[in-house]
């Protein structure tokens, strides 16, 4: 199969190329040639013309929808990408050539846009310090530092403030107390407003193009209002409460000459391009930093930082135990029931089958929460039936509980799949085994099981991959717990993925997206390696790719 790899990636390109159709077609070349001829003569049929007009119409509609926002925001790269992709797609469906691509391109476009691009972005993010405090570029950090340092100094101009909206964006309508001139302040700066109606108290009542937000509603957005600032030369306009605003002076300012931030009181913070912070002489940094490349730092942190790597191994082991036992238990139970029902002498198989797949048809997320509450110590059903015990609060029972819950959710799928596989095992084989004197068990062990396993290996591997990252089960049932008293970052039932989710601060705390992305890459590497090895070892590979 190595010889075929030379064509890497061409399946996902819209152009396999005319020569690309050649290699495997020789055996059927004659028939294809005829088909080609037939199609050529059909080219001007009604269907042909209608479908081509439809293609052009859809392309035009897409462009009309997609292009204006890109032009408006001057996103030229995106514009070129959209333009080229649309042109290629239009060409593809207008020409009678490249038939395989016609069928592959719709899925491929979605795959690239919403699966591959996020994966690539994740890999890129893993090498940065992107996260809280390091969200944007250096320029954005400087602007944030300057505007957040704005303070009211004696003599700062004051305004009457009215909160308004335009196109869904918040706007400050500012009225000069002396001249009653009205200005609109946005994140971009100040612009004069003509013909606004101003009340005696200085509130703007109406202004063309702006929607005034009533005070009661504005009060609900006070956090947003407090954070809003309108940049002005040498400072910014900020709100004090809901009806006053002032134009303050920036305390800190950026000096390009020394690449540092200075304040009149003598503070001096020098840009550190490695850390992505402005740092003063004592090593303290300002809150706002920017995104920088950190190389492999996130990866080495996972392996060497004692607060993290100490648990990494334990989590990894439990992760493997969970994924393997999830596959093994669901497969075993599915197999047992499928075998039990696999007999012409059992009546009502249809009825039993419906009952057995019910867990699979119930909404999974809701049933996980129901299970969590069935395991509840004080009120739960399990405590009522098997005695009161802190089921999910003790590591061993919590782990067993999760495997049982997963068994309940997962065995119906295995049951269905195995039922199908059993039906496909030729009866002659099992009959032959029996005639040769094999016991029922030996017949199953030596004939049926191997055949079923070969057929189901791909599904078992994907089941392993799914359970290795079974975030829902852990998150909704135990949320990783129980936790040791002295450690609240990692619980006894945490999988790598739920552990990452917490350490990376998605739940609360400081978000460290770069580190989270690095762990995602780790998880991907582990699952990909295990699956590849499994595929390699099973002959399923031959079966699937032939």
């Amino acid at each position, binding site marked *: 199969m190595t010889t075929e790899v030379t*064509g890497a990636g061409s*399946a996902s390109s819209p152009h*396999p190329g005319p020569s*690309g*159709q050649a290699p*495997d077609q020789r055996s059927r070349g004659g028939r294809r040639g005829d*088909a080609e001829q037939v199609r050529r003569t*059909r080219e001007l049929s009604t269907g042909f013309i209608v479908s081509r007009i439809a293609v052009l119409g859809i392309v035009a509609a897409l462009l009309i929808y*997609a292009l204006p926002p890109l032009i408006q*925001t001057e*996103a030229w790269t995106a514009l070129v990408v959209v333009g080229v992709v649309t042109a290629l797609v239009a060409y593809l469906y207008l020409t009678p050539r490249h038939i*395989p691509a016609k*069928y592959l391109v*719709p*899925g491929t476009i*979605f*795959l690239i846009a*919403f*699966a591959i691009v*996020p*994966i690539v*972005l*994740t890999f890129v993010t893993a090498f940065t310090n992107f996260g809280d405090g390091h969200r944007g570029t250096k320029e954005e950090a400087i602007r944030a530092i300057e505007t957040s340092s704005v303070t009211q100094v004696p003599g700062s101009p004051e305004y009457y403030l009215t909160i308004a909206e335009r196109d869904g964006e918040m706007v400050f309508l500012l009225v000069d107390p002396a001249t009653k001139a009205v200005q609109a302040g946005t994140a971009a700066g100040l612009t004069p407003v003509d013909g606004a109606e101003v009340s005696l108290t200085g509130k703007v009542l109406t202004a063309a193009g702006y929607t005034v937000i009533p005070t009661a509603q504005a009060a609900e957005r006070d956090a947003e209002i407090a954070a809003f600032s309108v940049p002005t030369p040498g400072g910014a306009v900020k709100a004090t409460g809901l009806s006053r605003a002032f134009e303050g002076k920036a305390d800190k300012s950026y000096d390009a000459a020394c690449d540092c931030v200075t304040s009149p009181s003598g503070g001096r913070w020098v840009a550190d391009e490695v850390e992505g912070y402005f740092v003063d002489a004592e090593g303290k940094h300002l809150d706002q930093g920017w995104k920088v490349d950190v190389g492999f730092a996130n990866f080495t942190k996972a392996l060497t930082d004692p607060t993290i790597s100490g648990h990494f191994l334990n989590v990894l082991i439990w992760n493997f135990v969970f994924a393997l036992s999830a596959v093994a238990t669901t497969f075993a139970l599915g197999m*047992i*029931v499928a075998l039990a029902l696999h007999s012409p*002498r*059992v009546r009502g198989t249809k009825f039993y089958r*419906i009952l*057995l797949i*019910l*867990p699979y048809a*119930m*909404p999974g997320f*809701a049933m996980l*929460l*129901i299970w969590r509450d069935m395991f509840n110590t*004080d009120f739960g*059903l399990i405590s*009522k039936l098997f005695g009161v015990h802190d089921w999910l609060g003790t590591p061993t029972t919590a782990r067993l509980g999760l495997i049982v819950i997963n068994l*309940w959710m997962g065995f119906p799928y295995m049951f*269905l*799949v195995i039922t*199908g596989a059993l*039906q*496909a095992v030729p009866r002659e084989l099992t009959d032959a085994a029996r005639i040769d004197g094999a016991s029922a068990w030996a017949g199953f062990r030596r004939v049926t099981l191997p055949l079923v396993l070969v057929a189901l290996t791909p599904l078992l591997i*994907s089941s392993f*991959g799914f359970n290795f990252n079974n*975030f*829902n089960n852990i998150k*909704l049932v135990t949320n990783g717990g129980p936790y040791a008293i002295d450690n609240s970052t990692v619980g006894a039932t945490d999988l790598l*993925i739920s552990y990452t989710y917490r350490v990376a601060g998605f739940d609360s705390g400081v978000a460290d997206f770069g580190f*989270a*992305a690095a762990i*995602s890459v780790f*998880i991907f590497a582990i*699952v*990909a390696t295990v*699956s590849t090895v499994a595929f390699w070892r099973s002959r399923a590979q031959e079966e*699937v790719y*032939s």
Partner: protein
Amino acid sequence: MIKWLRDVGWRYAVVLVVCAFALFPVVFVVSAAINPLGTLGSTGLIPEGASLKNFVDLLTGDHPFTKWFLNSVIIALISAFAGLLISVAAAYAFSRMRFRGRRVGLLSILLIQMFPQFLAIVAIFIVFTEVTELYPAFGFNKPWGLLVLYLGGALGVNTYLMKGYLDTVPKEIDESATMDGASHVQTFFRIILPLVGPVLAVTAMLSFIGTINEFLIANVFLRDTEAKTLAVGMYGMLTDKRDANFGMFAAATLLTAIPTVSLFLWLQKYIVSGLTAGAVKG
């Protein structure tokens, strides 16, 4: 009698035990849903009374349950249908045509779908923050954005399942159609699609269930109460008041189960053949 026990009797015993295991949580949900007290503590396997109070509370209460229900069903239906079309088209190409990069294409699909979309949630968030700015209709709090995102996973296991199934359909059938002058489009829509009905039904059902259950991405995407899907909305319902809302939550679970369970019953005769015919052939 002993022979009957050994040959058939054990089968019934096994099936009954497993059925009990499969059903008791479902019985518990039903019991909780009709329990008039509606709390977790008062719920057992056998309900102490029966009333529709929880259902009434659910439909008339503060939570816009019907809206969530509609959101979920619409997103799941469209994404199942569109995903199916995309996926079966690709499977058709992989099964029937020979082109350069075919093996690599199949392998890459397998490899890419090992990287769950959730792992890339940070990247997805970044991408869609931009998208929300440019095209609000496909951004956060809108079903269309979630929908196209779900379609990113359309080429995956399902494509394999369908390719395997298509491989079992004799090539002579569509070749004779070609000989009779059918174009590849006609062959695809008129010959192939009707032949693979069972696998289409099953894949659509699996994808429908998967979408209804999807929680994490939807949770990041849908913040407005009105825009939420069932999974996101109901999760919030139980985190609000865990004990008191339990009866309502159980009622909501039963209502959520209606579309999926009825799909299951409707497609039941196709399920086994559709789910495994592809797998067995490989």
